[in-house]
């Protein structure tokens, strides 16, 4: 090595796989990534505003989320919405069914609600209407997930393309329905008068938040302790193993996608009956895609996904507020969330690998050939420290 370092041809660094990273270190790296993301966000803001934005960024970020009771409620409502879609995706992704069609699946759930409101609203009691909406939205959501599932199970088609394309069908379907329901041609469905979730304690979104929290806990138990959860994990890890122990793989795929569809439909219900009271083609606001990242960062553990949803919504809502306060325009929030995601995802690299730089210390003495063991130990210590 001495000679190699001298000739200068030893690579500057090489990357080695880490096997057992202590938990505290992994979490330090993750928290560090969030902190660095915020710092870079502040620097970008400072750059855009000529320096004054650096401090304001942190203030506005925080106030944008916790500034008023209304904002706090919005924060939890947005988190609940993001989380329910992520939860809906988790069973599919755990099974390695790459469903990128949550956008359309949730929209279909919402469409199911609006269909009920349009044709039954006012004719039956509100409670019965919500119950029917509940069933119909789930049926719509299941319809949109089970079709690719059947194709995948029977003919092994590529679910990624299939689910992606189903998004566009769903959007156009909603557009057509709105066109039919709104005779004026404005293509905007106003606030619907029926089928609103009841308020709890005078606030709108409380019921949404409670329901999503309950679903989070139920899904955790389903994954961890139920036979279905076990089967879908085995199918996800290895189809060969599943077949070998006699699991009916087709049945598991379809069953799991029905569960995923039920949750997507439920997310649509929360969107229409609990949040917006209306529907448009872009009602889901891209959350069907963002939820994939949120679910993945939460390692498909429902409680961790709750954490990642909170974090994401915090950054998103806070940076939107910052953009308004500092007059930075609509795309500013995307830049900040982009930076955040980039760093949080990239930090996993440093958890799984370590980078070893060429050692310059070794030039000092000529004792090397006799004491290589000491050197390895030293460098190992350095890395963990």
């Amino acid at each position, binding site marked *: 090595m*001495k000679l190699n370092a001298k000739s200068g041809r030893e690579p500057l660094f090489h990357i080695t796989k880490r096997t057992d990273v202590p938990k505290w270190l992994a979490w330090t790296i993750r928290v560090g990534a969030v902190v660095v993301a915020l710092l870079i966000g502040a620097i970008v803001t400072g750059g855009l505003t000529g320096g004054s934005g650096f401090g304001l960024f942190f203030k506005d970020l925080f106030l944008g989320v916790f500034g008023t009771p209304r904002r706090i409620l919005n924060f939890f409502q947005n988190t609940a919405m993001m989380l329910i879609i992520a939860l809906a995706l988790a069973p599919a992704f755990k099974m390695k069914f790459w469903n990128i069609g949550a956008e359309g699946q949730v929209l279909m759930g919402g469409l199911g609600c609006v269909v009920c409101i349009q044709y039954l609203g006012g004719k039956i009691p509100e409670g019965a209407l919500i119950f029917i909406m509940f069933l119909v939205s789930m049926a719509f959501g299941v319809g949109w997930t089970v079709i690719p599932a059947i194709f995948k199970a029977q003919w092994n088609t590529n679910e990624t393309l299939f689910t992606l394309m189903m998004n566009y069908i769903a959007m156009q379907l909603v557009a057509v329905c709105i066109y039919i329901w709104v005779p004026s041609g404005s293509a905007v469905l106003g606030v619907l008068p029926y089928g609103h979730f009841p308020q709890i304690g005078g606030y709108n979104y409380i019921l949404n938040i409670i329901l999503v929290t309950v679903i989070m806990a139920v899904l955790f138990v389903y994954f961890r302790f139920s*036979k279905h959860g076990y089967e879908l994990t*085995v199918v996800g890890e290895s189809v060969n193993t599943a*077949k070998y122990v006699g699991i009916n793989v087709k049945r598991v795929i379809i069953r799991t996608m029905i569960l995923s569809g039920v949750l997507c439909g439920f997310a649509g219900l929360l969107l229409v009956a609990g949040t917006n009271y209306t529907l448009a083609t872009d009602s889901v606001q891209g959350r069907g895609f963002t939820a994939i990242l949120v679910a993945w960062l939460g390692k498909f553990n429902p409680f961790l996904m709750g954490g990642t949803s909170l974090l994401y919504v915090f950054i998103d809502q806070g940076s939107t507020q910052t953009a308004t306060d500092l007059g930075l325009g609509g795309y500013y929030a995307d830049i900040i969330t982009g930076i955040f995601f980039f760093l949080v995802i990239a930090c996993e690299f440093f958890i799984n690998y370590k980078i070893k730089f060429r050692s310059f210390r070794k030039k000092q003495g000529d004792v090397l050939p006799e004491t290589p*063991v000491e050197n390895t130990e030293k460098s190992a210590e350095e890395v963990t420290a």
Partner: protein
Amino acid sequence: MEKTYAASGKPVAIRMQGVSKSFGEVVANKDVNLTVYEGEILSLLGENGSGKTTLMNMLSGIYFPDEGEIFVKGKPVVIRSPRDAYHNRIGMVHQHFKLVDLFTGIDNIILGEEMPKFSVRDNARAMKEEAHAARYVVDSDDSSAPVKTVRDDETAKGKAKLAAKIAALPLVKFFKRCKFNWLPRSRGGRVRAVAEKYGFDINLNQKVYDMSVSEKQTVEIIKVLYRGADILILDEPTAVLTPQETEKLFDVLRAMREDGKSIIIITHKLNEVMEISDRVAVLRKGEHIATVNTADATIPMLTELMVGHKTELNIERDAPEGVEDRLVVEGLSFTDREGVKKMDGVSFTARSGEILGIAGIAGSGQRELLETIAGLIRPESGAITYLPPEGGKPENLVRKSPEQIRELGVRLSFVPEDRLGMGLVGNMDIIDNMMLRSYRRGNFIFLDRKNPKHLAEDIIRDLEVVTPSSHTPVRRLSGGNVQKVLVGREIAAAPTVLMAAYPVRGLDINSSYTIYRLLNEQKKRGVAVIYVGEDLDVLVELCDRIMVICAGQVTGIVDGKTATKEEIGLLMTLISDEHKHDADGKHTAKEEDKDEA
């Protein structure tokens, strides 16, 4: 501990000094010193995981050593990539061949070859110098006339000629490049010359997917030689060969040794070490233990060096007791998706209290046979009849799913070849893996983790599985421990038929012998054991009967007590060549891919 016996004053080809390499916390090589002389065959001996391949990968540029120096022919070198290794005339034939299936042998060999350097400027300078060089002309009969000095670049004609030649140089370069890049087959003759020089018997115009495993290996070796390697590293070259093919390979290796090449063979087969090598270097747990002259070595001595303590290398074989037919297989045929006949009228009987060995070249249909019995493959024709102990009702298992077979009360256990891809789930812990077989029992909705936990703890204790806890994901365990977990689970189901495919592949000696002992215990309990193996020495020692299959056909069933390796080796290649290519050419390649994954 370290002893190095110098070979008879030959020049040194490679010296590795103090080489260390670790992956994370795993130390693969620690302070290894190794010397290879020119014109010798050195065996690198060690158990799985002793760091043989890692050490050689550092020579061939796959890994870069953390510590230590490498000298090639006395000069210190830095090998950062396989290309650097080629420049130092080191070539490695990997265990998993790295060939493009759709290319011919020749195409694979010349693939990635660098064009010889051709510099316009240097050539121009050389031409100018040549033209400027004085030529002495004697053009007079008069011996006293002065000798005239002529320079080509002094005459107008010479100048014009030189200028034209220099102007044409870029064009010449272009044509050379065209020839190199677009007419690579023009180099076929040179490749064939290399093949002939060492007596390789192969048609290099075949596509790789049509080649048998041994032919693919030959292509790899020729590739390395064609690139001008003087130092060849072969990683477990005999693992996939029949005894006859191995003999052929050894002849070629001896021819190369005569030619002055240095050859390093990575292996863990002791008898081959004794047969082919001049010296043996033994690694244990990443450390170089000793290098000995083969002539001075004995098999027990090498085993002791390799394992670190004395080991009994005898497999017991008791006479079978209470033999009765358990599983009758008749006329199984199966053609896979690509239209290759993987089983062609396979018939045999597995009997209780006896170990039936299945021998054959990898990919001859062993996997398909076991998977068919286990209910994973639906054959086109044939019958599998299960005769329960104590004279119950015979059951036909063909075209039944594993679920249905279990519901019939047939206790069939199967240790598949692909442990982490089929038998176990790598990311799950030992307890959850125990549950794979039994999770359906009990409560309708929720899992019972209590009994699997007890089972996991029993297996860890009884089979001495080395693991931090029963909550460790099995992929973190070493190969031997993974296999103990799998075999332990399959045996815990109290089977009446136990099928094991390559259960000792990649295991160290101690773990292998644990597995043999477990199989023997099952045999004593009256289980019908079916053992698919690749090491013929073991098959002959362990099995009561050995069925040999070749290209999906049963070519013979021999008695384990009287059979010889050569006899089995011949049966393994009995089918005509054309047939053989179909079976092992395409499909071992696929299996190797899977293994790697």
